[in-house]
Each structure stands twice: as C-alpha cells, then as structure tokens.
C-alpha cells in the first residue's frame, strides 16, 4: 500500500497510535469516545451481512452524499480511482488474512477530498470477519504535505544538478544522502552505495585524524573548510570540502551539510606549472643555452642574461640588434653564419651553424648556434628564436687530436727502411747497410756477416720461436709477412722493429728466397702509445677511418660503444662493426662527403645503436684526414663524436614539460599570461579571447588604457611598479578590464615573479580569473543591502544595530529623532556615547538591569516582542518605547549582531494614563453616587421609622389610656418636618449640578452683607456678633448661589458658636500665594482635625442633636466646585472655633 510507506503517514504515526482503531469490544466505549474527541468518525463492518455502522457521529461529509453509506460497496463508491481499487484490495486482504490498513484516500466529494482511513480486522467466533476503523478529514495535512513534497522536489532537483558534491551527514558522522554529482565524483552508481557509510571511511588514512577533528567540531556547530586526497599515484584525487552545521529552530545542530568539489585538476595544474617551470629552468642551466629572440622586422634582439654578459651588453639593456652577435663572429666564419641564416629564413632549414666568437672577456669561444623560425598567420617570417651553445671544449678536444696526428706523421717522416734478402737455398742473408745502422752498427761493420743465425741471435729470446713460426707460416701459406719484433742493438738494448716480407717459391712450391724490410718503430710506437693515452682520456668518441672506412684509430670510449677494445676495432671496417647496416651506410656516406669537400663538418645529430642495444645520439665533428702538406683528396676521416643522448633527453623532457605546461594553461578556464618588467604581455593563453575577446597579438599591442576600465590602468601600473620594486607577485587583486565588446570584466589577478638563472627579475607570470559573474552577484547583493539600508533608514520606527560585543553600529534617523538627537549629532561621531547616556527604566520608573535590556537579551539569543520600557533623554524627558529586538546570526548560526526596532509610544501611553485617570474619576463618581443613593435612602427612612414607630406607640397609648399623646404627636410632626426639609435640600443639591449658572461681577462684601440680612433671624436669636470685611474683591459669580453658600456657612457658624459667651462670626478674605481665599470664621465649638473632611460629606453630621440634615455643607461644597473653587475647614481643635475657607478659582477677580 503506497501510503503506508510515505513520509506523511510515518510522521503521523504517533497520532495513528493514539487513535488506533478499536479492537476489543470491552474497550469500545472509551476508545470511541477518544476517537470522537479527536474528530474521527468510527465505523464497523461485518462480513456476515455486509453491514456498515457508524458509531457515534458519522463524518460530516456524508451529509453531501445522496446515497446511504451502509455497506462496503457504498463505502467504496465514495472513493476516487485509483484509491478505490487500492481500498478494495486492502479490504480483501483484511478479509483474507486479517491485515490492517492505514492509507490516505481521495474522495469523490467537493469539500473533503482527502481522508485518512485506518482499519483493523478481527475474526469472529462464527468465522465471520469484523472490520473496525476510523476515517478522518486530512485536507489541510494533505495540502501541507503536497506543498512540502513540491518544495522538496525543487530542492532535490537543485541539489542533484549542482556541479559540486552535496551530501548530508548525520550527527554520528554517517553520510545520509549524496547528490548525483557527488556519486559521479566517487564513481558510484546509486546512493545506496554511500548512504550509511561513515564520512571518515571515505578519507585516506593520513587525512583521517585531521578530518575527524573537523567533523567533531562541525557536529558541535563550528563549520570548516579543508582539503583531502583519495586514491594513490596518478589516480589520486584532491577534494576541497566543507562542513556546514544545519540548525533547527532551537539553534541545535541536527545534521551537517557537506559540500565537496573536485579540485584535482586545479591542484595538479598548479603543481605541474611549478614543476614545469623548475624543470625548464634546470634544463636551461644544464644545457647552458643562451637564448636569443630576434625580431626580423625591426632587427630587435632580446637575449638572455648569460648571453648579455658574453656579448658585453649591460644587464639593463632589454633590446639590442643582431649586430651584437655578428660583430663578434670570427670574420672568416661570417659567411657561414649568413649562409645559415639565409637557409633558415628562405628555405626553412633549421638554423645550425658553428663559429668562433670573440667574447666580451677577449677569449675566443666556439659557438654552436641553433634556431627556429616563427612565422605570422600569413607565413611571413617574423622572429628567429634560438640558442647559442658554447662548444669550445668539444672543439679543443678535436684540435688536440689533430696535433697528435701530425706528430705521428712527423715521426714517420725521414725514416728509411733496412732491407734484408734471405736466400733460403744457401742460407745466406743480405743485410743492407741501413739494416746494420738500424741495429746500431756502423754501415761498414759486419759487412761480411751473411748468416741467418746472426738475425736469430739478435731477436729477443722471447720472440725467436714466434718469429720463425711466423716465417714458416708465411712460407707455407704465402700470406704476407708483417710483424713487429724486438732486436738487440749494438749497444745491447732492444728496439722495436716492424718487418714486412715476402717469399719466392720454385715451381714445385719450394721456397727459394724471402726478402723484406725492417723499420725502427720504437719511437713511432711510443708516439702511438702517447696518442692513445690522450685520446683515451677524452670522454668523447675519437676515431679515424681510412677512405675505405676501415678504422685506423679508435679511442676507448669509441671502442666501448662498439663493445670492443681499441685494438679490436683498429683495422676493421665500419660495416663490420655497426650492427645496423643502414646506419653504417649513412656514416660512410658522411665520411665520403667530408673527404670530398675537405672541410670540417658537423653532423649535429646522429643516431647510433650500440651492439648492446643502447640507443645513443651523437653530435659528430668529422675532420678530413690528410697527410701533411698533401693536397686533397684526403686519405681518411678523423672524427670526434659527442654523446648528446642525455642532452637530447633533457631537451625532450623540456619540450614535453613545456608542452604539458602549454596544454595546461591553454585548457584552464583562466587567463594565463606572462608580462615583462616593462609591462608588455609576452604570453597569453587562448582564454584571453574568451574573457576579453582579444587575440594574443592584440593584447601585446593594445595600449593599457584600452584594456582597462577608466582609472584601472593607472592602478595596474602602480601595482606593477610596486611589485617590481618589492620583487614580489600579487594575489587576488581584482582588476576591472574592458572587453572588446566594451563590457566590463572583473578579473581576479594573481601573479608570481619570473627571474632568470641569475635571480634577475625579468617579469611576472600570472593567472587572471574571470569573476565578473561573482562580482555582479556581489553588486546585486550590495544593491539589495543598500535597499535594505534605505528601508531601515526611512523606517518610521527607530532601528538600532549593535555588534556582538554590544557596541552600537547603526542607528537610523527615526531612532535619532526619538532619542532627541540633533541632525549634527546624528551625523557626528558620538551617537553611541549619547545613546549610552540615556537612562533606561521599566514601566514603573525603576532603573532597568542591563541584562533585561532587549538588545542585551538579543545578543544572548533571545527575541523580544513588544517590550515596554522608558528612556530618560538628556533633557530629562521620558520616552515610552515599544521595543522589538532579535539576534542576527551568520550562516553558521553564530550571533554576530543584535537588532532592535523601537517606537515612541509616549503619546499613546499618556493617552492611556489620561484614560485611566478618567476611568478612576468616573469610578469615584459612581461610588459617590452609590453612597449618595444609600445615604439618601437611609436618611429618608429614618423619619419614616420615627413617624410610623410613634404612630404605633400612639395607638397603643390610646388603647391603654396612657397620656403621652402630645409628645408622640410632636415627634411625628418633627420627623415630618425634617423629612420635608431633607427633600427640599436634596432637590436643591441636585439643582446645583444641573442648572446652568448665570455669572455676573459682584463684590464679595456686598454678597456677604446680603446673606447676613437674609439670615438675620438666626443671628438675632443666638445673639451672634457678625462682622463683614469691607472692600472684598469683586468676582464673576452666580450671585444667588454664592449668597446661598454664605447663608449656609453663616447659619452653621451661628449655631455652633451660640453657646459661647460672646459668639462672633467673621466673613473676610486673605491673599495666599497670589490667590484670594475667602472665609467664614466663628469662635464656636470647633471641629476635631480628623473630621475636617468628613463633615463636608452628604448627610454627615458631627452634632445631629443640633438639628439640620447634614446636607448644608455638601451644598456649599457643590456651589464652590461649580465655580472651580475649593472648600476646606480650618480649626485648631475642639472648642477653639472653626473657619470654613474657599476660593473661587478661575472667576475673574477685581479689586
């Protein structure tokens, strides 16, 4: 069942357990209640009668179904295909094997298309099956799930197509997923091969510990970047990788994301470049090549530093002309040079010519010049690149040999042979006088000696037998007799002689006579021995051949390369000795050319296969060998061959290395270039065209201003000049260059110095990477940031950002405005210290702990919403602030800043407070009203109780005949009177608040006098002395009201002072703090201090026995209050009189 395994079903499994379908009858009720409570609809179905029952409330969507859902078929009919078929199958499985199901179904209804259906089967005793289950509407869950899946798919597509390896690692360090690129990178076919593998098992042993530590750090939340290698030797791969800890909403690391890029090629390229450069320089040193670069068009010559010294050019001279070389060539050899150059330029032959050159130090050197022609696209020769090799030593070896040869020839010269003639038949021998001379005798001595025995006696005893054996052999074989032997001379010393001879035979073959000559070769032999020693010392092959190609000389090195000794070589022909007949023929052909031309010839390179199979390369000088003073043709060839195999191998390696370097730099996506110290590009790889659209040639000739964006050329010049001065390269310098299309390209440039073998800086070699896209992205980011910045700046709320250590980084203008900063202060440097100076208070005005400040809390990771606080600004003004604050985290989740947004809610708060005080006032009024109501009801009730009570007593009295009728009646009357007065005064009190008063200016003195007149009766009755202060201020008042108030006060004053001996009441005024205070003072019984406020209340009476209703002072208070005045009582204490004071507030007062 598909939904059984899908992610949502698993996630929901907890719910499914909690609301497992009912299985036991006994549990039904409780379980059903729980299910119903969870919004699930429970059903039961029995196979016996195919009846389906809904237990409790059927699902709501059934209301939209027009057929009753009472059996399996009608239940299935609710479900859309293909879910209907799946459900049907599940149903059958449940019947057959009691399998439970849990699946999500799409219904064929409008409002509730997705439900979750869970069911369980149980076998009944009669063999029937009962299914119990529930369904639940999961429309919302399904939507969320689909959306989640959609996002997952997008994300997966992204991850899978990213050109880098992206993988997830769980907290145990095991890889849990890997994208397609990653699998390809590791040569795997499906994720199953890598999932579950421990990350460290993918690393080599040497990286294990290091990466293990990084992994542990990453699990603790610290990301890292690192490199590691896999595999061995040439298949070793280098990866650049990083761990990114992923955090959940609580900030806990729950897994790691790993990103790995294969940087093998990059690293290899870097290594190869380095190696190639080193190899190239090494080869250059070994070969002692001095390079030159001759531009034909302008005769400009650039030479390497060694050559500069040889030619006597200053090191600072960058360009010379070809004269620098030709002027030093031996004039005799100039034609050879010119011929060679012509051959090279016109006929395309390789330049190869030797000449003596007078070096700057005055010494003559033999130079081998080699060169190669460069042509432009049209085939026109442009440059000649070449090298000069100092071959002086090789030449010197050849010259030495020639000198020895001449000495040998001299030795031979001037000798004459001694002749002998032996008559075998007679046994007599003719020894010529020269013969005798050669043996040290005078020509006349032994003239008579004819005996062959004499010769035998002269022979060295060790050689006698050998010589006679040789003679015998000659006589028999008739092979020429040619032998060297030693003979004792007259002085007794032996000398070496070379004898040649030939016999004559009779017709029967009997030898009759043998004649020959001897030659003293002692000196000659010595010379040859010396020569041999010399030539054997030379480490090159030295040989001589006669015109027929027979070796007449072979030094040890030469013989060795033929696998023989020198003696074995001598006398044998080239054809015999050279294993490869083709090579032999070529050698002989060369010999013939030399013999014919009679000139020294250089065979720059010839391959030679030694008998032992070694392949060697020889560079051979062949010198025509001729007898002294004799004209051409020569008689043979003298050769000196240098083994240049190693040189060739080095050259070959060099070329390979250069090729490799070239292929590297030409295939890399970066622009690789070389530049000389004058800033001219000397090399560019083809990527230049891709990046800037220029060709190699163009970049050499284009002025820098064309290549660079405005201002950048100067920057580059400065960079170059500085780098030359400091003899260092540069790294990751971003340069803005201008492509051919006019488009700006951002190149990240890195370079190293290029020095020649003497350590002189000759230029720079570098790599520029096109980072335009990155730069664009950065610009976009910057734009977004500036937008964000503008949004913050123009935000009507204050915004403050602090760094991780709590220092203010930014505050926007709205913030400055709230903080009361002036524009100058806001633009200035001291914003932080001003903000720091604000006192922060909580809503009760208590200073805030630093730890409670929202920004401080933000830095410890807490987010604060709608926090109320107060800031006391510098001028002491309080600002109510509503603050929201939150931490700012980097991608690793570390807190790097805190941001707070705050609004000035002072007005709002003040409004709130006003409202609160208004409410308080209202409540007070309400309470007063309530008090009023019940005091009124109480005080009105009292007289009624009196009236009714005494009426009752009266009835009783009458019935019992008691005579207290008058007393009872008088009490009833008094109570009725009091009640009437009460009602009048209450009405009066109510009127004061209701009726709009009519204000007129009136003198308080005049009003007081009027009041005194009106209350005259009481004054007279109690015999009170009343005094009214004259000239009291004129005020704007409601006359009648104020008179009424004064009357009340006078009445009170009279009543409470009447028992004094001299009751006195005074109405007057005084000025206090610029305010007119009016008063009515008496010298009566006074009021204790604690009752000063109470007596002003409604119905409050201190002395009820004095009569009255307790409303009088309340009326006065009300009148004064309607005049915006205040009323209070002053009395030193009981018996000391009382003074009622009042003001008349805003009422215009006139003196």
């Amino acid at each position, binding site marked *: 069942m598909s939904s059984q395994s899908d992610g949502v079903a698993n996630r929901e499994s907890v719910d499914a357990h909690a609301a497992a379908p009912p299985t036991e009858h006994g549990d039904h009720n409780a379980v059903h209640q729980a299910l119903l409570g969870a919004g699930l609809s429970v059903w039961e179905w029995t196979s016996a009668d195919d009846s389906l029952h809904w237990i409790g409330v059927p699902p709501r969507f059934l209301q939209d179904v027009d057929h009753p859902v009472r059996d399996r078929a009608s239940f299935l009919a609710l479900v859309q295909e293909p879910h209907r078929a799946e459900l049907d199958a599940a149903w059958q499985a449940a019947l057959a094997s009691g399998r439970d199901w849990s699946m999500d179904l799409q219904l064929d209804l409008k409002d509730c298309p997705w439900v979750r259906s869970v069911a369980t089967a149980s076998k009944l005793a009669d063999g029937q099956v009962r299914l119990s289950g529930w369904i639940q509407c999961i429309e919302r869950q399904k939507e969320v799930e689909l959306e989640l899946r959609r996002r997952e798919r997008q994300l997966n597509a992204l991850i899978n197509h990213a050109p880098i390896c992206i993988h997830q690692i769980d907290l145990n360090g095991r890889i849990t997923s890997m994208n397609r690129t990653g699998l390809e990178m590791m040569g795997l076919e499906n994720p199953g091969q890598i999932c579950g593998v421990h990350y460290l098992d993918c690393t080599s042993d040497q990286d294990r510990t290091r990466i293990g530590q990084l992994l542990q750090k990453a699990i603790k939340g610290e990301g890292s970047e690192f490199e590691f290698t896999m595999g061995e030797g040439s298949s070793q791969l280098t990866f650049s990788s990083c761990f990114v800890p992923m955090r959940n909403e609580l900030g806990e690391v729950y897994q790691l994301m790993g990103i790995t890029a294969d940087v093998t090629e990059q690293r290899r390229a870097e290594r190869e470049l380095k190696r190639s450069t080193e190899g190239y320089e090494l080869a250059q040193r070994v070969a002692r090549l001095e390079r030159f670069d001759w531009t034909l068009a302008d005769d400009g010559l650039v030479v390497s530093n060694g050559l500069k010294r040889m030619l006597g050019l200053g090191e600072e001279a960058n360009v010379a002309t070809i004269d620098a070389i030709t002027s030093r060539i031996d004039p005799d050899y100039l034609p050879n040079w010119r011929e060679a150059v012509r051959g090279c330029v016109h006929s395309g032959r390789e330049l190869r010519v030797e000449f003596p050159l007078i070096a700057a130090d005055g010494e003559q050197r033999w130079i081998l010049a080699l060169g190669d022609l460069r042509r432009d696209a049209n085939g026109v020769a442009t440059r000649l690149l070449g090298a000069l090799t100092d071959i002086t030593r090789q030449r010197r070896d050849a010259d030495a040999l020639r000198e020895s040869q001449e000495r040998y020839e001299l030795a031979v010269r001037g000798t004459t042979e001694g002749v002998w003639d032996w008559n075998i038949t007679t046994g007599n021998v003719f020894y010529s006088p020269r013969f005798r001379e050669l043996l040290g005798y005078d020509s006349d001595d032994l003239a008579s000696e004819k005996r062959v025995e004499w010769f035998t006696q002269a022979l060295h005893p060790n050689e006698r037998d050998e010589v006679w054996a040789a003679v015998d052999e000659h006589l028999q074989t008739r092979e020429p007799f040619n032998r060297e032997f030693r003979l004792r001379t007259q002085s007794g010393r032996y000398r070496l002689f070379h004898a040649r001879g030939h016999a004559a035979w009779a017709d029967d073959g009997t030898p009759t006579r043998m004649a020959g000559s001897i030659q003293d070769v002692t000196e000659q032999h010595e010379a040859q021995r010396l020569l041999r020693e010399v030539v054997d010392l030379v480490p090159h092959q030295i040989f001589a051949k006669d015109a027929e190609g027979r070796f007449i000389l072979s030094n040890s090195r030469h013989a060795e390369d033929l696998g023989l000794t020198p003696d074995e070589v001598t006398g044998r022909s080239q054809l015999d000795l050279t294993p490869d007949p083709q090579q032999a023929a070529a050698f002989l052909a060369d010999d013939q050319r030399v013999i014919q031309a009679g000139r020294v010839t250089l065979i720059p390179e010839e391959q030679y296969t030694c008998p032992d199979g070694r392949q060697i390369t020889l560079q051979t000088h062949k010198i025509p060998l001729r007898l002294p003073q004799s004209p051409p043709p020569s008689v043979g060839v003298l050769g000196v061959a240098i083994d240049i195999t190693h040189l060739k191998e080095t050259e070959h390696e060099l070329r390979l290395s250069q090729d490799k370097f070239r292929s590297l730099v030409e295939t890399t996506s970066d622009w690789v270039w070389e530049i000389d110290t004058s800033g001219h590009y000397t090399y560019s790889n083809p990527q230049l065209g891709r990046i800037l659209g220029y060709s190699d040639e163009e970049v050499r000739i284009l002025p820098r201003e064309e290549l660079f964006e405005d201002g950048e050329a100067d920057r580059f010049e400065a960079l170059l000049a500085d780098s030359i001065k400091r003899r260092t390269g540069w790294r990751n310098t971003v340069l803005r260059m201008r492509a051919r299309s006019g488009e700006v390209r951002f190149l990240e440039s890195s370079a190293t110095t290029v020095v020649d073998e003497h350590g002189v800086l000759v230029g720079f070699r570098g790599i520029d990477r096109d980072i335009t896209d990155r730069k664009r992205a950065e610009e976009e980011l910057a734009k977004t940031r500036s937008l964000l910045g503008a949004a913050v700046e123009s935000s009507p709320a204050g915004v403050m950002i602090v760094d991780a250590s709590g220092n203010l980084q930014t505050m926007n203008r709205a913030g400055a405005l709230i903080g009361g900063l002036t524009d100058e202060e806001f633009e200035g440097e001291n914003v932080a210290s001003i903000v720091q100076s604000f006192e922060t208070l909580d809503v009760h005005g208590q200073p805030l702990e630093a730890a409670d400040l929202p920004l401080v809390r933000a830095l410890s990771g807490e987010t604060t919403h709608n926090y109320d606080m107060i800031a006391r600004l510098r001028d002491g003004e309080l600002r109510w602030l509503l603050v929201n604050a939150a931490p700012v985290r980097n991608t690793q989740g570390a807190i790097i800043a805190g941001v707070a947004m705050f609004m000035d809610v002072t007005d709002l708060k003040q409004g709130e407070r006003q409202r609160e005080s208004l409410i308080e006032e209202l409540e007070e009024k309400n309470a007063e009203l*309530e008090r009023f*109501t*019940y*005091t009124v*009801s*109480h*005080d009105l*009730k*009292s007289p*009624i*109780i*009196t009236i*009714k*009570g*005494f*009426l*009752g*007593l009266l*009835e*009783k009295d009458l019935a019992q005949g008691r005579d207290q009728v008058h007393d009872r009646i008088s*009490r009833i009357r*008094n*109570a009725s009177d009091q009640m009437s007065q009460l009602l009048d005064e209450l009405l009066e009190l109510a009127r004061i608040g209701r009726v709009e008063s009519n204000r007129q200016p009136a003198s308080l003195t005049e009003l007081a006098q009027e009041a005194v007149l009106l209350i005259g009766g009481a004054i007279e009755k109690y015999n009170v002395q009343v005094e009214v202060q004259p000239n009291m201020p004129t005020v704007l008042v409601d006359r009648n009201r104020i008179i009424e108030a004064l009357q009340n006060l006078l009445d009170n004053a009279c009543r409470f002072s009447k028992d004094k001996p001299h009751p006195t009441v005074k109405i007057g005024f005084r000025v206090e703090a610029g305010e007119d205070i009016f008063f009515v003072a008496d010298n009566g019984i006074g009021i204790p201090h604690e*009752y000063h406020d109470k007596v002003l209340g409604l*119905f*409050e*009476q*201190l*002395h*009820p*026995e004095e009569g009255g209703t307790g409303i009088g002072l309340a009326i006065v208070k009300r009148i004064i209050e309607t005049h915006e005045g205040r009323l209070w009582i002053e009395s030193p204490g009981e018996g000391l009189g009382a003074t009622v004071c009042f003001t008349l507030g805003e009422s215009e007062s006139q003196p």
Partner: protein
Amino acid sequence: MTPPENGQPQPESTPAATDCHVLLVEDNPDHRELICTGLRDCHGDINIVNVNDGEQALAYLRRTGEYGDPQRSPRPQVVLLDLRMPKVDGLEVIRQLKTSEELKRIPVVVLTTSKAKIDVAKAYDYHANSYLLKPEEYSELQELLTSLSDYWLQRNQEPISLHDDRG
C-alpha cells in the same frame, strides 16, 4: 420616659455592677426611644446602656475617659449597633471591636435602615454577629425586638474566654 440627654450614657435602671444586658449605639433620639420602649415592652427588667455614636461606644467598651470605672461600665450581653452615625460610624466600631483580643467575643448585632450591599458585606467582613433591618411598623419592630432579646439575652450562651474571665 424622657429623651436621653446629649452625649451621656443613659443607664435605664439603677446602675448595678454586672447589670448590662444591651449596649444600644444609636444617634437618632427618636429611634433610640422607639427601641428602648420596644425592648422594655417585652422584657421589663432589661438594662440598656445608650450611647450616641461610635466614638462613645468604643470609649464605653474600652473603659476610657468618662467610662474609666469598670464598675460603671459593665460588659453588655449584646451590642445593638446603628451604622450611619457621626464621628465614628458603625462599621468602624465593628472593625475595631472584632480586632480587639479583649472585645472580639462580645456579640454585635447591627440594627439599621441601610439595605446597601456594601454595608451588609462590610459588616459581615468585619465579623458582625447579625445584621437586622429596622422595620417601619411599630408592631414589626416590637416583634423583632422580642425575638432579638429572646435569642441574644435568653437563649444565646454568653461567650467565655479561656484566657480571661473578666468579661
């Protein structure tokens, strides 16, 4: 019977050291007379001490000022208390009595015209023992006073302090 004089306690019978059945705290002289008459009608030999306001009531019970002599200010069996009075009102009297270790056991019965919720609530908050409304009809008043005296003076067990047997 004559109206009582101002501010003076009005023992209705010959002062006897322990003879005080009722302390009547009432500022309205008419009501005072009605209550006294009513009480005597049903309970002829009753001793009633009259005070005019809360201040005097407290002075009597604390035996301060003019009530300094315990012989002349015996403890009442019950206090009948009006609420709205000058100076110290009835609620304040209850509060002070019921928070006094010495006086809190004396039964206090409120007898007032006020049906205000706040008065009823506060009286009980301060632990008044009973709260009665003054009826309008004299016959009803008499009935009330009859059952009141029957209950508080005849049936109710007088409070006893375990620590102090003075009262």
